[in-house]
């Protein structure tokens, strides 16, 4: 049986949504799935070197919970989403692609992104791969 795939579009750069991305990606590789993340817009910005570990914004509608969330996460030792993604890569097949249009728009190069990002691709590549995926989500 071919490996089942999950393809996620990571549009949001909000830390709470990126935690969900990292948790889903980890769970899927743990269950033997192949996982692909397609980073675009603010989701891609969050993967610029150093950005992730700054105090990141959380979803705007819950912005007032930001300080509480940061405090609880620290108190309970919740791993950072970027570290969770690194762990997922060690565990199984996780690939991370950066959207070429966003790269052009913000004038980024691949080496400005965290080393977990594999390569720059266009939307056609994503669509072609996502159409074979069992799970696709836009986060």
């Amino acid at each position: 049986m071919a490996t089942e795939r999950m393809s996620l579009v990571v549009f949001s750069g909000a830390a709470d949504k990126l935690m969900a991305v990292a948790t889903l990606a980890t769970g899927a590789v743990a269950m033997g799935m192949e996982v692909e993340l397609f980073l675009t817009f603010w989701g891609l910005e969050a993967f610029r070197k150093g950005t992730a570990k700054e105090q990141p914004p959380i979803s705007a509608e819950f912005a007032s919970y930001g300080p509480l969330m940061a405090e609880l996460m620290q108190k309970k030792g919740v791993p950072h989403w970027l570290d969770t993604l690194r762990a997922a890569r060690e565990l199984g097949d996780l690939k991370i692609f950066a959207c070429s249009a966003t790269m052009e728009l913000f004038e980024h190069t691949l080496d400005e992104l965290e080393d977990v990002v594999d390569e720059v691709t266009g939307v056609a590549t994503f669509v072609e791969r996502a159409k074979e995926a069992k799970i696709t989500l836009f986060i």
Partner: protein
Amino acid sequence: MNLPSGITIDKEIDARGSFCPGPLLELIRGVKSVPVGSVVAVLSSDPGSGKDIPLWIEKAKHEYLGAFAEDGYTRFVLRKVH
């Protein structure tokens, strides 16, 4: 609750306090690190583990030896079969 007689745990991982999917990840790492035939246990206080860990054990085709409730956590036990 006690383990069935005749079963000795070769490696026990304490993942209490870790959130989903932390205990599962630690179990997977633990299973990778021991030889085939070993009995591995993970301690989890995450309420998702009750379903997630047996599901992974089944999917990964190891032998599930059971979940044993302790005070505030559960000990999940498997035998690595491949």
